[in-house]
């Protein structure tokens, strides 16, 4: 065990680090709200469907990446396996949705 002053010093270091992280997370939140407003705005604004749908889908994906990387800390160390599994899941998910929307007799 480290002596007291040392561990205090460490505490201080981590506190600073957490504060820094928290700042990014608040920014993330602001972006998410902004994206949400844009998406709703586009739909309310009555633009062409072919314009709106791709844009709001992209906004959703970006928003979700923010959540994953900042709120859920996928950007931090020790998250290699979680990322691998989440993105493998996304791969299976995309195939599933693609099939159900294209080759299902609809």
């Amino acid at each position, binding site marked *: 065990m480290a002596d007291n002053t040392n561990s205090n010093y460490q505490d201080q270091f981590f506190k600073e680090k957490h504060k820094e992280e928290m700042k990014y997370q608040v920014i993330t939140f602001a972006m998410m709200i902004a994206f949400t407003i844009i998406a709703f705005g586009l739909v309310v604004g009555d633009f062409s469907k072919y314009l709106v749908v791709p844009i709001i889908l992209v906004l959703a994906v970006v928003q979700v990446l923010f*959540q994953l990387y900042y709120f859920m800390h996928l950007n931090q160390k020790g998250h290699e396996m979680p990322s691998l599994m989440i993105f493998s899941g996304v791969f299976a998910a995309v195939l599933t949705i693609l099939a159900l929307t294209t080759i299902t007799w609809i």
Partner: protein
Amino acid sequence: MSTHEDVLSSENLPHEPERATLEGKNKFMGFWFFLGGETVLFASLFGTYLALKNSFGDAEGTPSQELFGLPLVFIMTVILLTSSLTSVYGIYHMKNQAFKKMMVWFTITVLLGASFLGLEVYEFNHYVHEFHHTFTAHAFGSAFYALVGFHGAHVAFGLLWFLTLMFRNAKRGLNLYNAPKFYLVSLYWHFIDVVWVFIFTVVYLMGKVG
């Protein structure tokens, strides 16, 4: 690290208490993998919803454009996104070992989650009574309630989980035994939010657009 270490002590927690023990590491990994599986679960629900959207067969039904009202969905979205932020604050304080503050932020999270759920119930009730948009009326109804209802059930389960953990640990503070649990429930909560982002985009906004 010695095996005698008392995981129930709240003193001198290490940095990242959620992953300090092998049990914690295992829970952390396992839960992330579970979320990977949940991704496929929701994908199947989304795919089915998209295949059956506005599909009524011989039955009468209200198409999505007329059914959905955006103001309520917007409020619900903001509430849920905010609850995601408040749970981040909870974890922030957990990492700084400020147990009381963590509990305060998680309480706010629970309140926001509960109001989201309340609004969802109100919304469903509205569809059923104003539009006869029910689970059994037609395939669109089945697919809609399956997808959004599954998400709602996740919210409800998340609330129960939060509450159980908070009541159980209110008196004894943070320790190496419960830190992983708090961390997992907050991950779960974010995941619920992730799914909602797609629900409001794919179901409501795209439903409105047509």
